[in-house]
Structure formats: structure tokens, C-alpha cells
């Protein structure tokens, strides 16, 4: 694969030109944290910032989205699908979030293709960026240290300044050729610098799951009755934060709104979360997951068991967001390690 | 009932189109006034008591709930009081942004009052609802203006009612450039609407009764500014005093009839609010506002309480222009989070009083806190409370002159008078005595 390099200035110039033609979003500062937001000036972007509140999935699958608009005036109500296919360049998507998008593709772009998601997703241009982990990141445990695909362009910072660039798609190549005049070809040396960065990144990861990710489905399947769930369930607020910030979660609720004169309306979908009370309640009041431990079991199993078994990859990408946002310190690594330890204890 | 021979017995229960619940009770026989009361029937709310034992940071969010209309004013006064109590001097940026919020609130309250509460009287309809059909353009304009005013409060305080981001010694968040620029654009565009309002009022101005009564007027003064937020407590009678010395100006007396604890300066009733501000500070109005005052036939001080409505329109112009000025300032210098100290407040024992001009007049919040920032004493003095004695004095002067009128007309004139003061009874009840009339 061809490799290129670009310095900071060249990148800024290229991005300025991209911004003339495209909507560009990237992590920006918000208080002491970062969020993905529209940018007009590349100097506002913090493409390497880890732990944005929400992952960039919100551009392919927005928090609130109108699916249909309908009119109620005629004899037969009429509905029209609402699609948004405005291209958006997402700059600063880290390997974990690239994996996150792929996980959501399995469902939303799988059987019964969701055109609303599809329209956005296919027009979401991914400028991946490498990053330095904080104490919540655990990409090395779930195989997302490095993105093999899923990006149009990927930027890794190198010690000599600037970035090396990899091109992941034909679309990426077109964009590269159109906007990145200041990039130069790179060679073995830069490749070693790239490897170097990744090496340092891997070493900086401090949170680790104590078992190979392929073993996890079994660990979780065997742990349905573990006391670990009761322990954490007892402090869980059932606030849904963990699910809502997760790059692989896609559950949603659907709500209709009608204008006050009753003539027209819309059908919206809004993110929902399986950790919230009543998520699984049906008519008659029966709740299939009535307690916090039961809901935690479901969420954690979705990451390392159910979806992993179904689609062949863990649906936790090691981004650490759920751990950062959980105010009672429930996180994937702690829970996984407790389950693993418990089973090792049982075996021994 | 008036029979045209000097006997009057008026009882208006639950005066409409005022904030909160109040009754008017007037009785006269043989041309002699026997009873004359503005009764407040709102349930007691115990705000001052509820503050005791709470922390310094809660005062603002509790007291802004005293009133839905002037919650920004309560917020500003509360913050000033608490800052003065704990010896904190916030940055100019903080003061100016609060002022912008206050401008929004003054505008929104005046618009609400003029269009929704007073205009129906002048146009001879019972409420704004029928106006939606007969005067659609006026109503739409009113809604547009009110919306703009509300949005100023929202952009500065984070919410239209009960501001959020205003804190002791700063703000938890600042407006964005886009928000400010948007407001400015709308404010400038609103000058046309304002002009239309002035013209509308001009056609109705002769409907405002001619009634004069000399009294003392009290408002913040801070030459050469038409002041709302800082300065001293000025008076048309006495020398100005510092807010912390408010007690030397505002005396709380207990009157024998139902309305105990009326505030009187030197024992006499006085007036606060738009007309008081105008009478004290009119020479410092911006040229645009001065012009409007002239157009509306009130170039200088007036003693006609019905003209409070005119003063309000003049203030709409003044606050619009001042808001534009403040926004220009922020667009120019931006916000510097470094200047904000709301996250590093260290409680300290002390006593202090805040004083700001809310739409209905000067509002005092006095607090005493201990060295852990726990509130040990609180005293809140609300404009409507200060005005009540004056309203009754107006009644006493007015009623004998209108005894020969029809009952309905007397009732309307009295109601209009009460409404002119724009009393905010939900505020006032935290201190007023109450008498329940069933």
C-alpha cells in the first residue's frame, strides 16, 4: 500500500480546501472535554482528542432523526421518506470509532437495509486519525489498536512532525488527489515511524482485559448468574449513559409528532438504551428485564457475547466512553476481569 | 354601587390581567371615602424562611422562583446581595452580561404588559384573544417582540424564565457570537415594530385618564446613565444612599388595616417603577428614547400614574438601544472565561444588599451568611410591595373625583390604575399580609 506524508501546515491547507467543498466535523473543545462538531477553521479541530462525549456515529445515525413526513389532510394519509445524503467529512475518527461504525453496519445496513442510515453512512467520509489512549481506553484488548479498513484516509502522527497518510478507498484516493497537493510520497523510514507511534500507543494503554477476546463469549455465557451483576446492578442508576455514548449501540424509539392544526406531522426516531427501565416492557405491564442487574447482563453480553457470536467481532471497541461517563464506575474492563477471575477461580 | 350621588361600593375580586391574585375594595358614601384597599389574596409562600440554613449558592435559584416575570431581576439582585455579603467583586464582563439579561427581561415584561394586559383596556376588549382576530398584525408584532425579548433572556441566562447560567461571581456559560449577532440583527429590525407601537399608543393615548397626584419617586440613579443595575438609591425628595443602606430609605411600617408591613420612605408612600425611573433619570435617556417620550407627550417628569404605561414604552426604546450597545461591546471584545470566578467562590461571613431595577421598580435582596456560606438572615423587598401604599393613596385621591361616574366606569378606572402599576402579586406575597375574601 502506498504511503504519503504531510506536515501540519500542509494538512491545515488541505483541510481548509476540503472545508470549502464539504461539511467538515471534528472533535472540538467543550469545557474540559471534547465533542464532535462542525468546524470552519481547522485550528479548532482536535483530531487526536480521545473520549469525545458522543462518538462520530451521530453523523450516520443522529440522536434524533425524522424518518417520515406525512400529511393528514387527504382521504388517505400520505407519507414520504426523509433522507439526508449530504456528504460530511468526519475528521478525527479513531480506530475504535471506525470499528464502531462497522458494528452498526452489521445491523442497520444488514438484512432489511435501512435506507435512512445508508444514505448518511455512505456519504460520511472518514478521515481516520491515530490517537494516544487515556486510562479508560483498552483498544489493545479488543483488536482495535489499528484500523485495517473502514476509512477513506488515515493519518498517523510521526515523531519528525506531521502525519503519514494511508488511503483506504477509491473515494479516499480522489479526495487525496484533489486536496492534498502538499503531501509527499513516503517510504520505509516513515513506515517505521508510523509503526513506532503505534508501538508507543500500545504501550500507553493501561486498561486490559485478562483474556483473549475470542474467549469472551463463553465467559459471558457462563456468567449469566454471576454475583458480579448483582454487585454492579446495585449501584447502577439505570441512566442509560453507557449505552448512549457507545459507538456500537443503535437501539431506538420511534415517536410521532403532529402539527397543532392536525394537518401534517412526522415520524422521528430517537436513540434509546437497553439499560433504561421499561425498555423491555410490553402491554399488560410485563417487563422482560425488570432489574438493573438483568439490564446490565444484556448490555454487556451484547458487546462480548450476543453480537460477537452473531457477527464475528466484539461489539465493544475499547473506546472507554461508557467507563468515562458512568458515574458509579461500571466499565467493560472491570466487569470482564471480574467475570474472568470468577471463572478462573471456579476452574481452579 | 354608584348611583351618581356619591355612594360607591366596589369590590373587584381577582383582578384579571395582573400577575398573581388581588382584590380591589373601595367603599364611599355621600362623597366620602370610607374604605379603600388593594388586597392581596395570594397564598403565603415563606421564601425568606425557606432560605435560612441553606447555602449561599442556592439563594439565587430559590429566589428567582419568587416570580416568573422578573426572575432575571431577582437573580441579579440576589447575586449582588450575596456577592456583597461575601465580599466578592465580579468582573465587568459578569456585570455587563447580567445587564443584558436585565434588558431582555425589562423588554419582555413591558411588552407583555403593554400589549397583553393594557392594550385590551384601551381597545375596549376583555383580553388579547379577540385581538388575534381583529388586530392580527398587532398581535403578531407583539408576539414577535416578546419572542425577541425572551430570547435575550434565554441567550444570557440559558432559559427564558428562571435563568440558569447566572451564578455568584460569574456565568456557567456564555452566549456564542452567532447568538449575539442574531439578537442584534433582530433588535435592529425591531426598531420598526417599536415605532409602530409608539404610533399605536399615540392613537390611544387620549384614552389614558388625566389624573395627577404628587408623590415621592424612588429609583436607582447613576448619572449620567439611565440606570437599571447599579448606582445608588435615588429619590425625588431625599439624597441618594448606597444599596447597603437601603433601610434608611425604605422603611417598613405596619399599617393597621390588612396590609401590614407596607414600605414607606419617611413614613409616606412613594412610587417605584418605570415612571419613577423616568422622573429621576429622564435626562440620561438615549436620544431615540427621549424623542419617543416627546412624541408621546411626556417630555419630562409626570405625576400621572396612568402614564407609567408611557414610561414603559419609552423604556422599551431605551432598553432596545442599550441592549444593542451591550451586544456590540461583547461582539467586539468577546468573553474571557479567565475573568469568570464562579467556580472559585470561597464563602465568607458578612451581610450585603443587592438592588436592581426590575420592570416594576427597585428590588432589594439582603442576605447575611456565616463563614461557611450558610444563610442566617434574608430580607427581600419587592417593588409591588413598595408600591401598594402608593396605589391606595392614588385611590384615595382619585375616587372622590370620579364618584359621579357609573359603577362600571369607576371599576374600570380603578382596575386600570392597578394594572398601570403592573403589580406583581406573586412576588409581593412573600412579604405582604394577606386577607382572604371569599
Amino acid at each position, binding site marked *: 500500500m502506498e504511503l504519503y506524508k504531510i506536515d501540519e501546515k500542509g494538512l491545515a491547507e488541505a483541510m481548509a480546501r476540503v472545508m470549502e467543498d464539504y461539511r467538515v466535523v471534528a472533535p472540538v473543545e467543550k469545557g474540559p472535554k471534547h465533542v464532535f462538531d462542525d468546524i470552519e477553521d481547522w485550528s479548532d479541530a482536535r483530531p487526536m482528542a480521545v473520549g469525545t462525549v*458522543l462518538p462520530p456515529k451521530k453523523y450516520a445515525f443522529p440522536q434524533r432523526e425524522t424518518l417520515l413526513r406525512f400529511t393528514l389532510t387527504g382521504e388517505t394519509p400520505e407519507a414520504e421518506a426523509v433522507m439526508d445524503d449530504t456528504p460530511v467529512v468526519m475528521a478525527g475518527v479513531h480506530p475504535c470509532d471506525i470499528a464502531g461504525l462497522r458494528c452498526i453496519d452489521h445491523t442497520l445496513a444488514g438484512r432489511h437495509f435501512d435506507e435512512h442510515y445508508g444514505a448518511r453512512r455512505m456519504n460520511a467520509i472518514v478521515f481516520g486519525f491515530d490517537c494516544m489512549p487515556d486510562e479508560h481506553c483498552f483498544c489493545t484488548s479488543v483488536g482495535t489498536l489499528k484500523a485495517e479498513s473502514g476509512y477513506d484516509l488515515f493519518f498517523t502522527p510521526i515523531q519528525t512532525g506531521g502525519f503519514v497518510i494511508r488511503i483506504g478507498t477509491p473515494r479516499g484516493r480522489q479526495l487525496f488527489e484533489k486536496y492534498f497537493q502538499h503531501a509527499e510520497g513516503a517510504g520505509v523510514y516513515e513506515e517505521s515511524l508510523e509503526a513506532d507511534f503505534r508501538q508507543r500507543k500500545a504501550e500507553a494503554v493501561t486498561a486490559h482485559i485478562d483474556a483473549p477476546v475470542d474467549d469472551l463469549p463463553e465467559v459471558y455465557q457462563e456468567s449469566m448468574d454471576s454475583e458480579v451483576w448483582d454487585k454492579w446492578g446495585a449501584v*447502577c442508576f439505570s441512566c442509560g449513559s453507557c449505552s448512549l455514548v457507545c459507538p456500537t449501540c443503535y437501539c431506538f424509539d420511534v415517536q410521532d409528532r403532529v402539527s397543532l392544526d392536525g394537518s401534517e406531522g412526522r415520524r422521528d426516531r430517537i436513540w434509546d438504551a437497553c439499560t433504561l427501565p421499561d425498555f423491555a416492557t410490553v402491554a399488560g405491564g410485563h417487563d422482560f428485564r425488570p432489574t438493573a442487574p438483568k439490564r446490565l447482563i444484556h448490555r454487556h453480553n451484547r458487546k462480548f457475547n450476543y453480537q460477537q457470536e452473531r457477527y464475528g467481532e466484539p461489539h465493544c471497541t475499547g473506546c472507554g466512553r461508557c467507563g468515562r461517563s458512568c458515574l458509579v464506575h461500571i466499565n467493560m474492563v472491570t466487569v470482564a476481569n471480574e467475570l474472568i477471575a470468577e471463572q478462573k477461580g471456579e476452574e481452579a | 354601587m354608584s348611583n351618581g350621588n356619591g355612594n360607591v361600593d366596589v369590590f373587584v375580586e381577582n383582578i384579571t390581567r395582573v400577575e398573581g391574585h388581588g382584590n380591589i375594595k373601595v367603599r364611599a358614601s355621600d362623597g366620602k371615602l370610607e374604605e379603600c384597599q388593594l388586597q392581596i389574596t395570594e397564598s403565603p409562600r415563606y421564601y425568606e424562611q425557606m432560605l435560612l440554613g441553606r447555602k449561599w449558592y442556592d439563594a439565587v435559584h430559590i429566589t428567582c422562583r419568587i416570580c416568573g416575570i422578573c426572575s432575571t431581576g431577582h437573580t441579579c439582585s440576589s447575586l449582588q446581595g450575596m456577592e456583597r455579603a461575601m465580599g466578592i467583586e465580579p468582573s465587568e464582563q459578569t456585570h455587563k452580561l447580567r445587564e443584558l439579561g436585565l434588558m431582555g427581561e425589562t423588554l419582555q415584561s413591558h411588552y407583555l404588559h403593554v400589549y397583553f394586559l393594557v392594550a385590551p383596556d384601551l381597545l375596549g376588549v376583555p383580553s388579547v384573544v379577540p385581538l388575534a382576530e381583529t388586530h392580527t398584525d398587532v398581535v403578531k408584532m407583539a408576539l414577535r417582540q416578546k419572542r425577541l425579548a425572551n430570547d435575550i433572556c434565554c441567550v444570557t441566562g440559558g432559559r427564558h424564565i428562571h435563568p440558569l447560567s447566572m451564578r455568584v461571581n460569574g456565568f456557567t456559560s456564555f452566549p456564542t457570537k452567532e447568538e449575539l449577532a442574531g439578537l442584534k440583527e433582530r433588535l435592529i429590525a425591531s426598531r420598526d415594530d417599536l415605532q409602530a407601537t409608539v404610533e399605536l399608543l399615540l392613537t390611544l393615548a387620549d384614552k389614558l385618564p388625566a389624573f395627577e397626584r404628587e408623590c415621592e419617586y424612588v429609583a436607582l440613579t447613576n448619572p449620567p446613565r439611565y440606570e437599571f443595575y447599579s448606582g445608588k438609591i435615588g429619590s425625588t425628595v431625599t439624597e441618594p444612599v448606597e444599596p447597603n443602606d437601603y433601610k434608611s430609605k425604605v422603611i417598613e411600617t405596619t399599617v393597621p388595616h390588612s396590609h401590614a408591613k407596607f414600605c414607606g420612605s419617611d413614613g409616606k408612600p412613594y412610587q417605584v417603577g418605570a415612571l419613577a425611573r423616568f422622573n429621576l433619570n429622564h435626562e440620561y435617556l438615549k436620544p431615540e428614547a427621549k424623542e419617543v417620550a416627546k412624541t408621546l407627550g411626556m417630555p419630562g417628569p409626570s405625576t400621572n400614574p396612568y402614564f407609567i404605561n408611557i414610561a414603559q414604552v419609552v423604556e422599551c426604546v431605551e432598553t432596545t438601544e442599550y441592549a444593542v450597545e451591550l451586544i456590540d461591546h461583547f461582539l467586539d471584545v468577546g468573553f474571557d472565561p479567565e475573568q469568570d470566578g464562579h467556580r472559585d467562590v470561597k464563602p465568607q461571613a458578612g451581610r450585603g444588599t443587592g438592588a436592581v431595577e426590575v420592570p416594576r421598580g427597585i428590588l432589594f435582596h439582603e442576605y447575611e451568611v456565616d463563614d461557611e456560606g450558610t444563610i442566617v438572615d434574608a430580607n427581600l423587598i419587592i417593588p409591588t410591595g413598595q408600591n401598594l401604599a402608593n396605589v391606595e393613596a392614588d385611590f384615595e385621591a382619585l375616587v372622590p373625583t370620579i364618584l359621579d361616574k357609573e359603577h362600571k366606569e369607576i371599576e374600570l378606572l380603578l382596575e386600570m390604575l392597578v394594572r398601570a402599576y403592573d403589580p406583581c402579586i406573586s412576588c409581593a406575597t412573600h412579604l405582604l399580609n394577606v386577607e382572604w375574601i371569599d
Partner: protein
Amino acid sequence: MKPKVAFFSFTSCEGCQLALLECENELLDILGAIDVVKFREAMSETSDEYDIAFIEGSISTPHDEEKIKKIRDTAKVIVEFGACAATGGLNAMRNSMGTEEDHYEELREKVYGPVGVEHFRSTKARPVHAVVPVELTIPGCPVDRGHLLEVIEAVLVGRSPRQFDHPLCVECKLNDTVCVVEAYGQMCMGPVTRAGCDSICPNVGDACEGCRGLLPSGNFAAHQQMLEEHGNSKEEIRLRYLMFNAYPCEELEVPLP
């Protein structure tokens, strides 16, 4: 037939009625869809026939109690409107200052001056549903405009409005808002408070004070412990719970630190 709607105000700041008047962009549409027959704050005409009664304010005097019962007899639908009506709101702060009638006499005297005339009695401040059954609730101090409009819409369409049986944290996340506990260790009530205000406080960097009321499903013990971990004293946490939620604490038997 347009539904006839009446607005009533009890012990409150009347900010919630104002919140309705503040729906400037929608007000004309609302007036087109409903028939407002009583709205003292904005109109003089009135009628005693109505289908839907919006109630603002707490029930805090024997007279209030009588009045709300009369309204219940007339209205098909009662909407508790705003924190004071839905949870007792700030008014209920005084409930913990004592429960005896005498006590209120004393309080009243302190605040309102010496007794010289007939004061009317006041009782504990209670939400409307503590006195008469209600059909719908729009909590919040003040009510959220969006929620208010949604309920009006739902009533017109014949849909049951959303209940927001989940914590406020949900809306923080949907809004990409920085958590004020995570960022500043503020005393946020969000994890145990009913959502539906679009996380308006955290959005501007302020902690949720719980004005929409405690969630019956709230994990109060864990929440209080979490707040303590972030450096807030037991007393501060207790006061925070008793600010907007004095009545719900009683109603839900919430353990307080």
C-alpha cells in the same frame, strides 16, 4: 369541537402560565386549536364550563383544597402544570420546617408581620395529585416549552404523552452535553430526576436541581454516595434533595443522608 381549556393558578410564581404565553411562535396555532375559556393572567372573560383544566401551583391552603375539588368535579382532564403542581416544587421546602398548623401561624407571623387581622390558614404544600386524581403531568420549574407543546399536541391528537420515566442523563447524552459531575464534580440530581427538559441545566454547565421530580425508579442510595465521593457533604446533599423534592422524598420514602 375544540376542547375548552381553563387555566388555574394556585400557590406559585405563575411562571408556568407565562411559559405558555412564551410559546410566541405557536400561540396563534394553539388558540386556533383550543378554546381558552379561563386564563386570569391574560384575560378578563371567563366561563365555568371546560373540558381540560391546567393547574399551576401547589395546594397549600384549605381554600385551595376546596377550589381544586370543585375544579375536579367539572374538568374531564386535569393537567398538573409545573413543579409546584406536579411535585409541590419549592413550596414544599417549608414542609420540613414543621407540620403543625401552629407552626405555620408562627412562620407566617415572622414573614408577614404581627397578627392583627384574620390570616388565612396554610397547610403543607402538596402537589395536585395528592388532593385529587389527575390525568396528566407536566413537571418542571418552569415547565419546558417543548414538553408543554408536546402534551397539548398529544391531547389534541388523542395520543398519550410521553412519560419520561428515565433519568435526565439520557438527554445530556443526546445533546452531547458535558456531564457536570464528570467534569466539575457538581451536585447534579440528573441521575435520579425525570427527564423531559432536554437537560437544559447541564447544557449550560449547571447541575440539575431536580425540578422535574424524583423518579420512582431512582437509585437514591447510589446517587447520594456518588455525590459524596465528589466532595459534597451529607448536609449539602440532603438540602439538595429537599430543594425541589421535599414532597417527593416523603411520597417515595427516599432515604436522606
